[in-house]
């Protein structure tokens, strides 16, 4: 098994764990963590493509690495925004559940 295949399988596992967490876990903080696992898997996949797609004698294709750096910044910003919303929700209501307000009369 080549390194690229191994990393590809690891990326698939991360994506699977992340999707499972997002779908099954009701707590917002766990969903955010699952999103980060999912994102990590996707970024790892970009790394695999950088290795596999490298042609013309280079050790690696630099473009996916540039994409991953941009993606990391975006996903960091997304995480920060989500955490800020969760914290504010906890400050306002005392807990950070997503479903507490559903169907509640005003």
């Amino acid at each position, binding site marked *: 098994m080549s390194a690229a295949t191994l990393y590809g399988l690891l990326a698939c596992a991360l994506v699977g764990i992340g999707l499972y967490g997002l779908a099954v876990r009701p707590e917002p903080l766990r969903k955010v963590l699952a*999103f980060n696992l999912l994102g990590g898997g996707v970024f790892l996949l970009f790394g695999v493509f950088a290795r*596999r797609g490298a042609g013309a004698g280079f050790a690696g294709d630099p473009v996916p690495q540039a*994409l991953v750096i941009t993606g990391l910044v975006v996903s960091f910003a*997304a995480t920060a925004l*989500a955490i800020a919303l969760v914290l*504010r929700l906890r400050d306002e209501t005392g807990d950070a559940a997503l479903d507490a307000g559903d169907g509640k009369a005003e």
Partner: protein
Amino acid sequence: MSASGGFLLVLAIMLPAGGVLVAVATGGRIARLAALALLPCGLVLAVAIAALIRTGGVPLEYRVGGWAPPLGVALRADGLSAVMLLITAIVIAGIALFARDYFPADAPDETERRAPFVFWTLLMGLWGALNAVWLGADLFNLYVALELLTFGAVPLVSLDGKPDTLRAALRYLLFALIGSVLYLLGVGLIYGAAGTLDIAQLAAMPHTAPVFAIAAALMTAGLLAKTALFPLHLWLPPAHAGAPAAASALLSALVVKGSFILAVRLWFDALPGAMGPASAQLLGWLGAAAVVFGGAMALRQQRLKLLVAYSTVGQIGYLFFLFPLAFGAAASDPAAWRDLAWTGGIMQVVAHAAAKAAMFMAAGLIGEALGHDRIDGFGGLARALPVTVFAFGLAGMSLMGLPPSGGFVAKAMLLTASVAEAQWWWAVAILAGGLLAAGYLFRVLGPAMAAAAPGAPPVAEIPLRRQAVVLGLAVFALLLGLVPLRPSPLLDIGRATPPLVLAR
């Protein structure tokens, strides 16, 4: 492909981005001034780009830093970009003029000053992000634009900082994040298989390999979550109904269209033929379900803003008839009908943007005047706010598809194409959706026309100037009905194969 034309594309993104920087650096009321000063600039820019494309007959292109794709990132404006730039500038101008009085410049306490600052800054941010979506020619660059759109839209939902809107914002963000990560996964797969993410270069290569279909399916699923197509619409009603009216108008009229246009670009421009007719039919069926479900849910709402939000769920469904109709069910379908469906689908984007912005702003004024937005308490409204209720009705005409309105033109084109292509089931959904829309709009207009209940609290005064802005956008939605009922030559500029032919 003149250099000066390309420069305009950069300006269309950089002007709003510059406005955001100025607002963040100076804070306070400068944000509002900067946004209002940008309105005429943005309008002129959109008209100039559209005129250049219309007269030149070819798309404008700009290569950032002079680097050619696949290493560099290009900006590209075709007929579709021009139309979207124009409608964005017009609707944002209407929303900004409306919001000028909605968010008073000098509120007494700190938190009340904060909401206007955030609104004006994010208005400019969203404008820049939308223009980046319309102009992006690189799938990864479009991912970044899509994320900017999300980061601008989510805080607008929770401007008032109440727990309910915070929950709505968080739910919206989580849906959007799943959507964007699926999109990114697809981008990775495409890069791994093709070695480029430039839309024109992708279109030029064969993409019948299964990996392209998998990537397109992942990306489409992600974009549907962001567009709130049934059954991924769960986040939309609380988010759009909970935001302040000016922000709801922005979210419902424009933001959900960003991911939709991206899906259109993916299917028709980047990977034509990667998706088969069966998947186009599936998107159409989801759209039909959205039309019926959104309309039925809107009928059942007791509060006006939720009704308008569910109406958005239904109207988004119409957009997805574009996919089966513009692809054609059979290769034997004449290209002219597929082209008509293409124009009709984009026309629905434009008409809904104008009508829904007007409708949310009218709902906002009604809520302000009455102090609530419960439909059963609307007695005497038409007498107290005739201009606003009239504007609401005009915008409603477009949603119903009554002639003469932009919605009528869009739905008539889709209807004609579905009959001509022997895909009559979409015609049933289009007509049923029109009936449902008529139902929920009369449910609002009926009580509004009735006499006020005895002892009802007085209706607050709303300055005529603010009602006039809403009426202006509603009349614009109506005037869109003057668009000729035939394939638009402007929308065909830059299409690789104007009569789309499926590769299989």
